[in-house]
Structure formats: C-alpha cells, structure tokens
C-alpha cells in the first residue's frame, strides 16, 4: 500500500503524501527543471529522476543529486563519420538523446539494473544504479528501427518497458511510432511483436504492419504476464499471449483514444484508461474529464467521473501520468493543466489534490 506519489512536471518533481486520509504536496525537488519521468526502485528504495535541462541537455540523476558521479546521461553511440540518418519522412534524425521517456527497474534478481527509453528511440541499460549506461545496440541497429517514426513528438520515442516477472532476460518495449519489440536474451536480440494492432490513418497496405503501430502505452499484468494492454493512437488493444497478437476493443464510450493505461497487479482483466476526443482535438469529451475502467477484459467499461471536473475541463493525461499502486486500489492521475487527483477505491471516487501544478508528465506511487 503506497502513501506517496512522485509527480514529474514541467517545473520540478513533487512528492505528494497521504496523512490522515488527505493527500497533500510534501516536498519539491528540482524546482524549475523539466522532469520527464521518475522511477522509484522498490528493490532498494532509490529514486531516479530524468531531467531535461533544455540548453544543457538530458540527465538522469538520483533524486537528491543532480551531480551523480561520472557522465550519467544515457547517450547514443557515436555517429560514424559521414553517416547521416533520416527518418521515414526523410527528415534528419538527431542522434543525440533528446528526452528520457521511460525508466524501469530490472528484475528482482538484478539489483542495480535500470532500463531507460529515450527519444529518438535509444534503449539503455545500467547495471550500476544509473552511474553508467549501455546502449542496446541490437535494437538500435535492427534494420527495421529506421522505419520508426515520430509520433506525438518530433522524434520516435521509446516510452514503455516491461520486464517479465518470471525472467529478467525477457523484456518488451514499445515505441511511438515503431510498435512493440521483444527480447528474451536480455537485449542481445530483438523481434517485433504486436500482430493484430491496426492503424487506420496510414495507407491500407501498412495498416496492420506491426512496425507502423503508434503504441501510446504498453503495460503488463504482473500476476499474469501473458496479459498486456495497449493504449494505441487508434484505440485500445489487448493481448493474452505476451504481445504476440492483439485484439482491438471497439465501442468504448466516450472514446477509445487516449494516452495512458494501467492494469491491475493481480487481475489481468481490470484496466483503466483516460479517454480523450481522438487525435484531431485531444481534449476530454464535452469538457468532462473521466476515467474508463474494464473489469472483464474489455467487454464492458465503467465511466468513472465522481470527483473529476465535469465542466470545461481540458485536462490531457499523458501516457505516464496515470498511476496505480501495488494493491490495485489507489489510482492517481495528473494532467497537462496541472490537476492531480487520487482515488482510493479503484476510481469510483476521486479527490483533487491540487489543480495548480505545472503540466504533469508522470505520476507514480512510491
């Protein structure tokens, strides 16, 4: 049971703590700095924050220090002289790490191992608590990586990393846009997963190509790792075979478009989403911020709105800004307009912690 939240925002990292049944901001770190995502490592209690210093680049320090020893940023391997790279649209692809978009702990048998996903799509692993980073060359050098494309940002972004609780060598990652990739040898080799996902906004012959899929977020049920949920640019998809194949969930009201998804830690059929009007607008339907929840694997959805703003709300909840605690009871969401809400009953009722934060990028129970 978690009584603390780490809230990563455009202007700092906020911790939010529960006291006497009330949630309130308890501390601020890196005030003024852009914190793209934060990791609380349950194995040893360490925290890691990904900072984007704008002029001075991307860094990944531990929570209380911006000066972790060594050159702690994940960085891409040097570009061979004269070698220029372009994305599928022919635009020059920046080979410098532009943003850290995912931080995850390795398996329980791998103390100190941290995984890191970035824009423009580099995947990194640290074996020393983030002191140094190894680029996963096999994924970067995969011929299909050049088919990755920019989704919501100017560069392809690797935003989701799922470590198999049964074997730390098995890892899934998801890219916007580039689909889902899987390794079963700790990153030495990678194969594409994600058949069955569909992108209706690309030419028909590409619509089912796994590499063309704009996965907004991929999550895996810890107690039933074969079950994976995807919030996709095109809607909601669910897999029951470790991401090999997906089934589209249709008819979800008020919308199946969104960025975030979380799955219950023990109930693979239970997942939460934050719907928005689809891509051309990206605001809550009719100005009403709601959360949708399925308990039956996507057959039906509850619309949860009690305590959320229902009048002229233009809150967008980014892909990492919906959090769920280890019990599966507490849910939290943070929005682009600085709102933060917590539910302690699986989303039935929400309490507003504050609506004056900087734009929220990520929310995590810690």
């Amino acid at each position, binding site marked *: 049971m978690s009584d603390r939240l780490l809230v990563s925002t455009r202007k700092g990292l906020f911790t939010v703590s529960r006291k006497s049944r009330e949630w309130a901001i308890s501390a601020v770190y890196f005030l003024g700095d852009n914190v793209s995502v934060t990791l609380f490592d349950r194995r040893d209690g360490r925290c890691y924050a990904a900072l984007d*210093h704008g*002029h001075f*680049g991307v860094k990944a320090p531990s929570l209380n220090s*911006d000066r972790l020893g060594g*050159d702690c940023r994940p*960085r*891409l391997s*040097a570009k061979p002289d004269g070698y220029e790279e372009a994305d599928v649209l022919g635009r020059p692809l920046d080979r*410098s790490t532009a943003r850290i978009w995912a931080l995850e702990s390795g398996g329980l048998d791998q103390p100190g191992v941290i995984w890191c996903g970035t824009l423009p799509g580099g995947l990194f692993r640290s074996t020393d608590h983030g002191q140094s980073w190894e680029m996963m060359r096999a994924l970067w050098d995969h011929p299909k990586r050049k088919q990755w494309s920019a989704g919501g940002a100017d560069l392809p972004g690797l935003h989701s990393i799922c470590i198999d609780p049964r074997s730390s060598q098995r890892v899934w990652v998801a890219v916007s846009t580039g689909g889902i990739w899987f390794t079963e040898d700790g990153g030495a080799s990678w194969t594409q997963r994600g058949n069955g996902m569909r992108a209706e906004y690309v030419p028909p012959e590409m619509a089912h190509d796994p590499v063309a899929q704009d996965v907004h977020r991929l999550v895996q049920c810890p107690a039933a790792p074969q079950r994976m949920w995807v919030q996709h640019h095109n809607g909601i998809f669910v897999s029951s075979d470790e991401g090999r194949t997906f089934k589209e969930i249709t008819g979800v009201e008020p919308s199946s478009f969104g960025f975030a998804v979380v799955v219950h830690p023990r109930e693979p059929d239970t997942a939460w989403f934050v719907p928005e009007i689809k891509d051309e607008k990206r605001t809550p339907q009719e100005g009403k911020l709601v959360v949708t929840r399925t308990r039956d694997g996507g057959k039906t959805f509850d619309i949860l709105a009690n305590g959320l703003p229902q009048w002229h709300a233009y809150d967008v909840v980014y892909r990492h800004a919906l959090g769920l605690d280890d019990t599966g009871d507490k849910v939290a969401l943070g929005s682009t307009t600085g709102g933060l809400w917590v539910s302690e009953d699986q989303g039935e009722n929400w309490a507003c912690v504050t609506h004056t934060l900087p734009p929220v990028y990520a929310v995590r129970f810690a």
Partner: protein
Amino acid sequence: MAKVVFTANIQRHVLCPVTEARGQTVREVLESIFAENFQARSYVLDDQSALRKHMTIFVDGRMIRDRVRLGDAVSETSTIYVLQALSGG
C-alpha cells in the same frame, strides 16, 4: 592562453569557473578544460561531441561557425564565451 567564460546559468548544475587553456581551435581549448572538468562536458556538448543545439560560443565577439567540429580558430589572447542561445529555453 585563451580565456574561457561560461554562462552563469550553468553554474548551478556544474561549477565552471573562468579558466585559461591552450589550443588553436575552440575544440582544443574546450577539450583541454573538459579533461579537468569532465562533468561540464555533457552540459555543453551533445552525444556526438557537437555543440548542444541551444548553446552558442563567441570567440573575441564573433559567434563560431563550426558547431560540429568546433574548428574555429583561437589565438593566445582570445576570450571565449560559452553561452545559452536564445532558442530552446
């Protein structure tokens, strides 16, 4: 030796005092400094050792032209300013 002045804004991340260093190009001078102050390097240069997109460097009042190789000439009496560009804030 050339004199190198770093923007005040970088100081809260990594200490970069005014320094004198030898070199015939901006690259040589900066690498000489970064050899002693390794932490500072990643705040000024990107993964490919080019000047960060939103940084700029002036040598004796002139903005450098070679942002990738940092090959602009430096004299014994040059003053180099390493600053934030006005973009990217």
